[in-house]
């Protein structure tokens, strides 16, 4: 027995001679939202397909609850949104979703679900006439069918406008609130930052990071960026503080989180020479770059 909604345990997979998944371990508790980040070809989609049982793995084990990938139980318990999802263009949104509802065996309120994703106007229009964003919404509607234990979303924000993205994250929160573990493979770093409980980063088939954003920041030891604008002489200010002058009037300082207060006190002591201070903590993007691009030594 396990209390994990999804557990991936030392999973490896080869495609030809290349190792596309290398000793991946990851687990999601019910209701947890985890972002899975990585470059194209890092193995995100392959990992998702392994969880779905669509592609065999060489080593290790994957469990959805207690079921193995591809088993009837596992398929009932998982919901999946493929990357750039598409459907048969001749069907209407209602017909497509009705098919999925019947296949999943759930008694679903199809019009209600389509309204939830903002497609109530396009209910009886052919999918062939849908925009990419609308197809993505339809894909999202089928994720909401039944009450999945695990939802796997592959690039769910691709093709969505900013407002739809907000809707998407509201829906993800809803899923998490009903106890579904949500794994989101994404490139949209800034949105993922605020909306997930944990972040996992893959690089070349390996899991290089798996932790909360704060812990990852601390672990990476990425510097905080201080931008100090001089009121008169930027060169003198640069000499005084020991930073780099980045334009005519500003100086940039990098410091560790522990040294942050000390640096601020030094700046404060300069009095009138400083016109403004801007402080930027490390962004997910910096973290991502740190973990995903760091070369193996």
């Amino acid at each position, binding site marked *: 027995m396990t209390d994990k909604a999804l557990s991936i345990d030392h999973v490896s997979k080869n495609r030809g001679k290349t190792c596309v998944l290398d000793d991946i371990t990851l687990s999601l508790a019910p209701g947890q939202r985890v972002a899975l980040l990585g470059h194209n070809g890092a193995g995100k989609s392959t990992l998702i397909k392994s969880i779905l049982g*669509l592609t065999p793995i060489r080593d290790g084990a994957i469990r959805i609850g207690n079921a193995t990938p591809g088993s009837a139980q596992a*398929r009932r318990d998982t919901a999946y949104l*493929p990357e750039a*999802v598409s459907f048969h263009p*001749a069907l209407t949104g209602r017909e497509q979703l009705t098919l999925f509802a019947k296949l999943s065996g759930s008694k679903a309120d199809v019009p209600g679900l389509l309204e939830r994703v903002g497609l109530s106007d396009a209910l009886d229009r052919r999918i062939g006439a849908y925009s990419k964003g609308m197809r993505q919404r339809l894909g999202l509607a089928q994720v909401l069918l039944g009450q999945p234990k695990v939802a796997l979303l592959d690039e769910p924000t691709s093709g969505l406008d900013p407002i739809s993205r907000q809707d998407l994250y509201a829906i993800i929160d809803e899923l998490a609130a009903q106890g579904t573990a949500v794994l989101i493979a994404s490139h949209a770093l800034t949105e993922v930052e605020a909306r997930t409980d944990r972040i996992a980063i893959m690089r070349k088939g390996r899991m290089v990071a798996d932790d909360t954003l704060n812990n990852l920041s601390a672990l990476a030891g990425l510097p905080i960026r201080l931008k100090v604008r001089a009121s008169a002489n930027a060169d003198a200010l640069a000499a005084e503080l020991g930073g780099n002058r980045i334009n005519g009037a500003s100086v940039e300082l990098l410091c560790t989180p522990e040294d942050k207060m000390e640096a601020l006190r030094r700046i404060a002591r300069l009095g009138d020479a400083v016109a403004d201070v801007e402080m930027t903590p490390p962004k997910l993007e910096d973290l991502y770059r740190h973990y995903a691009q760091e070369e193996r030594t």
Partner: protein
Amino acid sequence: MTRFLAITRTEMLILRRNRWLLVATLIMVLFALALTFAGSAPTGTLGVDMLTVSVASMTTLSVYLAPLLALMISFDAIAGDVDRGSLSLLLSYPAGRGEILLGKFCAHLAALAFAMTVGFGTAGAVAAFFGGAGPESLMALVRLILTSILLGAVFLALGYLLSALARGATAAAGLSAGLWLVFVVLYDLGLLGAVVMDKGGAFTQSVFPWVMVANPADAFRLWNIAATEGVAMASGMTGAAQALPVWAAPASLLIWPVLGFALARLAFRRVEP
């Protein structure tokens, strides 16, 4: 257990919506009518009613058309979903691959059956109206419709097989065209060549009929011809039919759909969306 029916329902909707059903039925009606009128000349000389002649002509038509129509729907069944990227989503649902294939098969077979029944039925009715019909020729018409559906089933299954093996729907379409050419045209030409080379030897006497009946298209022809004397006379092909036991052609035409479906199911198992 009713999940495959949900697939069937959706597939039928698609066939109706993209006009496949309409076009296929129209093709069947037009060709069957044209052949019935064009082939009505020899009624007097052979001493059979017009429906018999019409069935004989339509048998020849069906050998070409039934496999073609079947392959035209089935080549896209798996490869098309892979291309669209919708297969991975479909397979993430509780329906198994066998259920998906069965669901599509039922819908496609129903559509073929509709087109065949309407097409041959219309032409048969017209022939019977103008040139008379008897219980035997009506029987021949029913047999023609049923065996045409069986022949269609064979090529539906073979189409799924190619669709699962091909990389992409375009490749599947090409393979299907090749398959049609081999089974319907080249196979017979090859056999003909072999018979000519053999000059009535052992091959022609004992092996040739069996090799011929192994091809579902030829089995279809033999079954229709052997069963009705009038049709055999009208088509002028009795030799090969007489050299075989009665069950040979029906057995071939009944085994092929099952075999083809099993092969398609095996090939589908290996498809990674």
